[in-house]
């Protein structure tokens, strides 16, 4: 078993938000705008459900195999050889994530900020940062993320106001004119991107309460979905779908449009200085998950011993992969989502079945149902489910009625956005309610133990 790491529920939710948002912002808007044109902002509801599915399976695994991470569980369930093969496939997937992100950000920095610096040097310095964090633990990355992610989220939200002089609602209209199949397709593509949440399986040993884990991961996924929806609305409202679909780095060009009065210019430099650390933490977390996976093969309690060789391997394999910018952008937009779904769906089904079999016959602590905190938790949980359901209904209803009723698309779009916001708030309150419930349960057990 790996040594105990402690990250609280808020850190997990923000880490998930950071991982999902920062990765999707590089070039995904281009792909989504190509497929669904000005309806690309409806792309993040099915991915949220997919992330919730992953969260459900992980919560079950935490309950069935307490204190174990994903790799240890796979070895326990599959045995030495089959478990080893499956773990090797998961490690290959994590390596693909790391290489795609490192090469993508190296190209981005080389093209936009550091054109005279050799690509190899940018990549080496970036991996040195990963190796520096690899000597520490997830707790350090989670604490650094606590500094940058809230600012990044706030800035993403404020983009609407800073770009209000460039924004035109007419560029989003007609809402839901695209075929429902196109909207379904962009949700499928974005689901693959949200598959990055799978890497948190490497940190299951850090979380003890399964129900809190589920609520936390759900909240993180909804934060990501809402933020990305908002950014897409702004992207399409400012630049339109035609320009967005032709840009390699649409968000970079979007923030370059910020002009607040005559002297507040180059605001994108400030935004970039917040986005870059948040993105780096994403790659750090992926790298630490990779080290945890390699450590599970080495049979060791701490993965830092593999940091040096893994870091050097990542440098040279990243340099050899994706020789051109288009290669990595195309892979991130099309290949990676497909690979995520192909690898993850069967593995999730297998792990869920394994967790169910393990739990059969074994009791687990039920939640105290007659407490005020439990009632609060149930209320917010139901509001959250209802809000997400209304989001789906609004898309389908709007797409079907758009041709017959003039304002159907606009009304369904507004309903979708409002319900997503309600889902965000209710998921936060649900997470807090279950956290208070968990504390009350823990205090009750301590009191009972003291009295005995």
């Amino acid at each position, binding site marked *: 078993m790996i040594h105990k790491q402690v990250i609280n529920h808020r850190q997990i939710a923000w880490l998930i938000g950071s991982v999902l948002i920062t990765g999707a912002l590089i070039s995904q808007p281009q792909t989504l705008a*190509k*497929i*669904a044109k000005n309806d690309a902002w409806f792309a993040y509801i099915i991915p949220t459900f997919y992330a919730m599915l992953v969260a459900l399976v992980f919560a079950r695994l935490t309950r069935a195999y307490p204190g174990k991470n994903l790799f240890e569980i796979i070895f326990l369930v599959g045995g030495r050889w089959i478990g080893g093969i499956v773990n090797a496939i998961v490690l*290959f997937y994590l390596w*693909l994530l790391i*290489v795609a992100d490192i090469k993508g950000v190296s190209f981005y920095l080389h093209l936009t900020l550091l054109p005279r610096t*050799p690509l*190899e*040097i940018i990549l*080496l310095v970036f991996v040195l940062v990963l190796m520096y964090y690899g000597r520490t633990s997830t707790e350090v990355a989670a604490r650094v993320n606590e500094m940058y992610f809230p600012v990044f989220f706030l800035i993403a939200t404020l983009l609407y106001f800073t770009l209000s002089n460039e924004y035109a609602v007419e560029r989003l209209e007609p809402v839901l004119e695209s*075929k429902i*199949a*196109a909207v379904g*397709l962009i949700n499928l*593509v974005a689901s693959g991107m949200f598959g990055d949440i799978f890497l948190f399986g490497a940190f299951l040993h850090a979380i003890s309460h399964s129900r809190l884990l589920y609520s936390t991961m759900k909240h993180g996924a909804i934060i990501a979905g809402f933020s990305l929806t908002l950014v897409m609305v702004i992207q399409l409202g400012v630049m339109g779908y035609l320009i967005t679909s032709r840009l390699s780095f649409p968000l970079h060009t979007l923030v370059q449009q910020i002009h607040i009065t005559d002297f507040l210019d180059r605001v994108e430099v400030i935004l970039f200085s917040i986005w870059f650390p948040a993105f780096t933490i994403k790659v750090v977390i992926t790298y630490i998950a990779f080290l945890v996976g*390699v450590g599970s*093969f*080495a*049979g*060791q309690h701490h993965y830092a*011993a*593999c940091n*040096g*060789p*893994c870091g*050097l*391997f990542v*440098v*040279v*394999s990243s*340099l*050899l*992969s*994706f*020789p051109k910018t288009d*290669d*990595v952008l*195309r*892979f991130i*937009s*099309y*290949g990676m989502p*497909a*690979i995520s779904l192909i690898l993850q769906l069967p593995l999730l089904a297998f792990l869920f079945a394994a967790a169910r079999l393990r739990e059969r016959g074994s009791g687990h602590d039920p939640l105290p149902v007659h407490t005020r905190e439990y009632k609060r938790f149930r209320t917010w949980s139901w509001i959250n489910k209802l809000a997400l359901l209304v989001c789906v209904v609004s898309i389908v209803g709007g797409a079907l009625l758009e041709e017959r009723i003039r304002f159907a698309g606009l009304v369904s779009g507004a309903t979708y956005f409002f319900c997503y916001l309600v889902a965000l708030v209710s998921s936060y309150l649900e997470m807090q309610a279950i956290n208070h419930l968990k504390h009350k349960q823990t205090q009750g057990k301590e009191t009972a133990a003291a009295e005995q």
Partner: protein
Amino acid sequence: MNRVFLVLYGLMLLASLIQFFMKRKNMPVKQRRVVGFFYLITIGLFAALQFQLNVIMPTNYLADVFSVGLQQWLEKIR
């Protein structure tokens, strides 16, 4: 290939290998095998990097064939 990178990376790899050879007797067997495996692949890929042998990487197929095929399929059906 940039010479500064080659020198820096070469020195890092050498220092890491020396450290491994000095500490390997105290390492458990499994850990020694895993770390040794990564060093072997790294040295092999470093040699391939000098000849720009990008085709040996699985990412070559994933980027040039798999992703392109998917992109064309998505553009056909949308």
